[in-house]
């Protein structure tokens, strides 16, 4: 066992994949924390060879590559795949492997044509095997895995963690409670399973703490006042700790400036600008746009109707102001159903900033007036407004007349599925299933209707890391003719300078189709996520007729997806994107 991953970093692409598919710490911690609280003992425990149980979690690269072993090796060594079923982290379904994945169902009606397909695919993956061979045999390496054994250990761990979160430490050097190191675990034979599990928990906790400290280090740069945004994006792609999420999201979306010295004054100004905007739009001078107002009004009670937070009148009024102001300031698009959904992850996340650590997870239940002053609520509202505005800048084409952005994405999804899962594509064609019939909503609501809010928020850690800083100029054009002009003082801020630079660069690249290394685009990445999502159910869908397919995809079995499932989906999307980069370069 255990060829060390010395060769795994040989190519940059692979390294990138490793980095992106590292889904270890934060999410595991999230799951761990949930598992600590719930007494759900039905989860499978992980019984892998523990001999390699790690000493601390401080070698990041090591950790990173280890956590991706199952993912990568799963795609290359099919025989072992079944071992991992039942474990979210390693539960991968890449469609070219349909033949091998979990399926009695899939192979019953194998035709010769199908066999040919698989042969081709096998060959394709064999090629990849050579590149990835270094990791194949490391299959039994311990993976940080969710486990809820070791209940005796829970209380202290829990308390320690909470206290840590509660501190919201301002000093990055404060350090974290040094947890017991695990390097004594070599004599694993003598250990009980209980000990293994508690070690595993500590290991996860350690890596979580390590991760938290990395965020702290980035957010409070010791030398200089500039936050390294690309580093932040890289780190955030794999999930942001709840504690840091509000701050990180504001940075990722390009609302808060990377220069921390300017942060508070700029936020203050933007929050004031929002207040002024609201005051103006609801003043007597402004003639109410009745159809828009009416549409928003009827949609507000229908927004997240099952989450208590969105039933409080206070919150509903908040959302109504945000949406109406945005609609008035963006007449080319106006309010379109689905945008109401897009505000809520921001709103909910920014509310958590005002909650004690122990209360943060209750944000969806508490009425904000219990813990917020009116002014604070307006700040949350303002931040949500500016952030959703930034997000919508990236996907403006989705909501203007005719919704060309969505139509384009749906088309790309079809093209992509044709390439990565030709059988499914063919099957859909035979059954007259059209992509627009199920994927329109996926694009219009960024898959928000498909997942629970917590999962959406985790997904957005990655999505916001994928947002580009390129489209801000178009929004200026969009809003310039409207009641409120954008803050002129902002034009001189470092943010806008940076953005002007980057936007002119990308405008150039748009016209000349310059291939840049991994130019991020939320719309493009989202199509890959949708493709990964669809082919995940490929086995089932192959046996469904039109009605069953549409019904299934309207209501996919994702209600109880955990973070590990989301992270796997995102990793798969990333891998597809890496593999098909050339094929899709013309999309831009």
């Amino acid at each position, binding site marked *: 066992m255990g060829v060390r991953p010395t060769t795994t970093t040989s190519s940059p692409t692979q390294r990138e994949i490793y980095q992106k598919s590292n889904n270890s710490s934060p999410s595991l911690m999230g799951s761990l924390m949930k598992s600590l609280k719930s007494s759900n003992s039905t989860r499978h425990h992980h019984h892998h060879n523990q001999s390699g149980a790690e000493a601390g979690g401080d070698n990041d690269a090591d950790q990173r590559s280890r956590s991706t072993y199952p993912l990568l090796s799963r795609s290359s060594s099919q025989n072992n795949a079944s071992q991992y079923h039942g474990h979210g982290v390693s539960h991968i379904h890449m469609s070219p492997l349909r033949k091998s994945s979990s399926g009695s169902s899939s192979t019953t009606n194998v035709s010769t044509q199908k066999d040919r397909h698989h042969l081709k695919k096998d060959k394709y993956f064999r090629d990849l095997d050579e590149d990835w061979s270094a990791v194949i045999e490391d299959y039994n390496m311990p993976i940080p895995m969710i486990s809820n054994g070791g209940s005796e250990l829970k209380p202290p761990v829990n308390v320690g963690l909470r206290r840590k979160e509660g501190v919201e430490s301002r000093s990055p050097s404060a350090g974290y409670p040094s947890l017991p190191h695990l390097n004594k675990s070599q004599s694993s034979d003598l250990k009980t399973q209980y000990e293994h599990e508690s070690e595993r928990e500590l290991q996860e906790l350690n890596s979580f703490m390590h991760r938290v400290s990395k965020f702290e280090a980035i957010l409070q740069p010791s030398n200089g006042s500039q936050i390294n945004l690309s580093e932040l994006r890289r780190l955030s792609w794999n999930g942001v700790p709840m504690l840091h999420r509000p701050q990180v999201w504001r940075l990722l979306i390009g609302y808060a400036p990377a220069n921390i010295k300017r942060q508070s004054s700029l936020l203050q100004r933007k929050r004031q600008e929002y207040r002024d905007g609201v005051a103006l739009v609801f003043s007597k001078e402004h003639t109410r746009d009745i159809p828009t107002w009416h*549409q928003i009004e*009827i*949609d507000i*009670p*229908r*927004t*997240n*109707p099952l989450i208590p937070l969105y039933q409080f009148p206070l919150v509903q009024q908040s959302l109504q102001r945000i949406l109406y102001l945005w609609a008035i300031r963006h007449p080319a698009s*106006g309010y*379109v*159903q*689905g945008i*109401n959904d897009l505000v809520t992850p921001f709103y909910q996340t920014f509310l958590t900033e005002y909650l004690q650590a122990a209360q943060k997870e209750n944000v969806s239940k508490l009425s904000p007036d219990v813990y917020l002053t009116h002014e604070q609520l307006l700040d949350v509202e303002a931040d949500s407004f500016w952030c959703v505005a930034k997000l919508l800048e990236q996907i403006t084409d989705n*909501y203007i*007349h*005719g*919704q060309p952005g969505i139509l384009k994405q749906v088309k790309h999804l079809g093209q992509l599925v044709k390439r990565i899962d030709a059988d499914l594509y063919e099957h859909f064609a035979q*059954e*007259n*299933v*059209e992509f*627009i*019939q199920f994927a*329109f*909503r996926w694009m*219009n*609501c960024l898959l928000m*209707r498909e997942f629970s809010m917590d999962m959406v928020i985790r997904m957005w850690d990655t999505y916001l890391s994928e947002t580009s800083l390129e489209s801000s100029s178009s929004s200026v054009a969009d809003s310039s003719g409207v009641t409120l002009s954008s803050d002129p003082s902002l034009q001189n801020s470092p943010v806008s300078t940076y953005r002007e630079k980057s936007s002119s660069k990308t405008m150039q690249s748009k016209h000349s189709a310059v291939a840049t290394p991994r130019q991020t685009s939320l719309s493009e990445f989202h199509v890959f996520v949708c493709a990964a999502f669809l082919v995940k159910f490929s086995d089932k869908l192959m046996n469904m*007729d*039109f*009605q*069953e397919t*549409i*019904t299934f995809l*309207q*209501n996919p*079995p*994702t*209600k*109880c*997806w*955990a973070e590990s499932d989301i992270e796997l989906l995102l990793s798969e999307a990333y891998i597809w994107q890496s593999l098909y980069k050339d094929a899709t370069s013309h999309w831009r």
Partner: protein
Amino acid sequence: MNSPVTSIKLVLLGEAAVGKSSIVLRFVSNDFSENKEPTIGAAFLTQRVNMGDHTIKFEIWDTAGQERFASLAPMYYRNAQAALVVYDVTKPQSFIKARHWVKELHEQASKDIVIALVGNKLDMIEAGAERKVAREEAENLAQEENLLFFETSAKTGDNVNEVFLGIGQKIPLKTAQNQAQNGGRGSSGLRVNDDSRVDLRSGNQSTSAGGCNC
């Protein structure tokens, strides 16, 4: 009983929040929820109804109401044999929109399409809200345009099944079958129900989420 099954492809059109999805939910699951998330794109549901010795299977496309999504509607009504044009009896604006849909259907949809004009939210009037669309006005429109006409409450279930039964009676079964076979492979992708295929699904199944196997 192995009765012949006829499929009727039906589309719902109407302004946002008049209760299109609620009418379908009532018909398909005999259920109601006060605040349903707005439909995005369109939702597909089915329900079977026995009429005499015949079974009619309704294949329903429930479209999104907001104007911005209207460009998708032709895809769904193009091969439909029946349409419900829904308005809210307390919202005059929604009746104006209903007129537009009727006009568009007559111009763009299949010539034989059976259209039912449906005034929903009757319960709100019973609960004291002011009626804003007179019954006579709607009846006149129905007569002029040769529409079926119903006033319903998806909330109480009042008259909802009658809409679908009325449509079932109006469509000659053979015609429905022929149309289904001719038009089903069209670009809309609305699928033909193949009689030779054993359909294991009941109508109610089509709405339920199903358990999550994790």
